């Protein structure tokens, strides 16, 4: 028995020493870049290329909504270097002093960015804190094997014959924005009557036909055939649907338009790897890399001009489809009006 215990102790000691060696080795040699990004937003292959080229490690954590990202960063305790907020949150994070300034003159590939996109960056004039990553919009995916005749409009959610076979995101600004646009209002309205009208449309006309509001598993539900019509992000949908089935899916941005988003790369205040973070931002906008990113998700190259020619694959929608869309902006204290309307919708009776 004594022998055994001694052996165990020795083994334990050995394990401890090994762990210490490994840990100390980590600290000295490779730098680590901490990225906090949306689920499905940067392909692994791009991350791996960056790791290889610069000899660093990348830790890639994900979030499902701007609010979640913001709340986690606000709560502190996480040492992220880069994150990818949408425009409204870039302005909020600037106001809250959470971002590090970015010297765009140091970025070789900044000139690849479409000036038309830069012109839309009124949340950060002159791009002092943010570099556009991707301009896109959520749309509607339809399973063509189950639904044949339909209008490429938000009115598809009015169809009672598809009741309980349709799903929308559990995302306040997105769904409210869809209804507002459908009614002909701005997605950034602060007019109580317009917000109420959108709420009533969703609550009384759309919701009875919806299976549920879901931002976590909507793509899985669509891929499994659980739902036939899903409002959501193309990249999530096509990541779940098997490649052999892609031709059965129609993804469109409804003709009325909807809220669009411009996600940007920002460097967080207190980042320990500012230079490396800047290198990552520049790396993303290399035309070849940007095209790889777009191809991976079936995105049109909305932000990077030279990448458009390098893209090999098809896109789920065209940059022109975004013409009728409107960029979501921070509505400040008026967000309370949206909160109240959305609570009414979500809590349900």
């Amino acid at each position: 028995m004594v022998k055994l215990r001694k052996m165990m102790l020795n083994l334990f000691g050995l394990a401890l020493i090994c762990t210490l060696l490994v840990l100390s080795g980590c600290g000295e040699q490779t730098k680590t870049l901490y990225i906090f990004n949306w689920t499905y937003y940067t392909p692994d292959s791009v991350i791996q290329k960056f790791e290889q080229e610069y000899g660093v490690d990348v830790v890639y954590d994900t979030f499902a909504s701007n609010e979640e990202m913001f709340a986690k960063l606000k709560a502190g305790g996480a040492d992220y270097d880069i994150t990818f907020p949408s425009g409204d949150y870039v302005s909020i994070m600037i106001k809250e002093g959470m971002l590090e300034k970015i010297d765009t003159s140091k970025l070789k590939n900044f000139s690849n960015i479409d000036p038309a996109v830069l012109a839309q960056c009124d949340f950060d004039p002159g791009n002092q804190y943010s570099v556009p990553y991707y301009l896109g919009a959520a749309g509607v995916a339809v399973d063509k094997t189950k639904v044949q005749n339909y209008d490429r409009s938000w009115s598809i959610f009015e169809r009672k014959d598809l009741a309980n076979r349709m799903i929308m995101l559990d995302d306040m600004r997105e769904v409210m924005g869809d209804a507002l646009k459908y009614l002909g209002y701005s997605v950034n309205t602060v007019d109580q009557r317009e917000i109420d009208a959108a709420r009533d449309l969703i609550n009384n006309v759309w919701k009875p036909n919806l299976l549920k509001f879901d931002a976590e598993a909507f793509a899985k539900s669509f891929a499994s055939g659980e739902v036939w019509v899903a409002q959501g992000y193309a990249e999530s949908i096509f990541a779940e649907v098997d490649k052999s089935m892609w031709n059965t899916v129609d993804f469109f941005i409804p003709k009325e338009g909807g809220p669009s988003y411009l996600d940007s790369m920002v460097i967080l205040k207190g980042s320990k790897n500012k230079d490396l973070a800047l290198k990552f931002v520049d790396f993303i906008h290399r035309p070849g890399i940007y095209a790889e990113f777009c191809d991976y998700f079936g995105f049109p190259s909305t932000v990077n001009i030279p990448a458009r020619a390098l893209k090999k694959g098809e896109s789920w929608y065209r940059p022109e489809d975004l013409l009728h869309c409107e960029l979501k902006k921070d509505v400040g204290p008026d967000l309370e009006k949206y909160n109240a309307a959305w609570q009414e919708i979500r809590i349900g009776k």
Partner: protein
Amino acid sequence: MRKQHIGLLYTLPQILWLLVFFAAPLCIIVIYSFLKKGLYGGVEPQFSLEAYTAMANPNIVLVTWRTLKISIIATTLTLLIALPCGYSIARSRNQAIRLFLVIVPFWTNFLIRIYAWIAIMGNEGFLNDILRALHLTTESIQFLYNQTAVILVLVYMYLPYAILPLFSTIDKFDFTLLDAARDLGATKFQSYIHVLLPNIKSGLVTAGLFTFVPIFGAYAVPLLIGGKDSYMLGNIIADQLTKTRNWPLASSISMTVTVLTTGLVFLIAMRKPREQKQVFDVDPAFLQATPDGER
């Protein structure tokens, strides 16, 4: 003197643990619930009762009521299923294997188990496949995304938490008492109700608490299994924190949940000492009803 010091030393890790991971976070929640909300999340250092008055909102009252209803139904069902399970394990000859089987599901992450339920009960799930294959239905029956599904999965999730304490009390029960009751003329059913149940009350209470308290704060099950009508308090708390940026309201609702559930625990704990006076707890009304085994 020295002995006392050693006692303190032994309990120190536990005290520290409770202070750092229980008392301190609870204090933060209490403080936050009395502060003004920050525009972009967080709090402003300014006293406010807004978070508590906001709870009078009919929507939140409705969800509190719904949460209470779901919790009570799910707990009752769990106990009803756990009781015979615990009993049969206690009376079985291969207890070890049966207990092991109760614990096995814990080896799988609970989110995966939730997704497994989706795979079983979904519109295109196994259950619907079987029903269609048997020609019992042509269209898919929608089992998921309603309160019934939420209750079903909650019962499944917390069943082991009810079986284990029930088993351990039933295991200690002197089964010859049941024979005695039968000898005195009680039917099998009567002997269970009037002799077994009063003696395993503590196990029932523990099992009830172990299921009710976590179900009352459920978040993932109503989110993934629930539909448009299945929002529970846990979901509201998460939404206020992560979506609508109202941290004080999230804190005040959390406080309400904590106070309600600890209140319940205290109420039950206060009642306990009286019970322990009796060695065997038999319903007095029952003793009167069957004098000298007349029946």
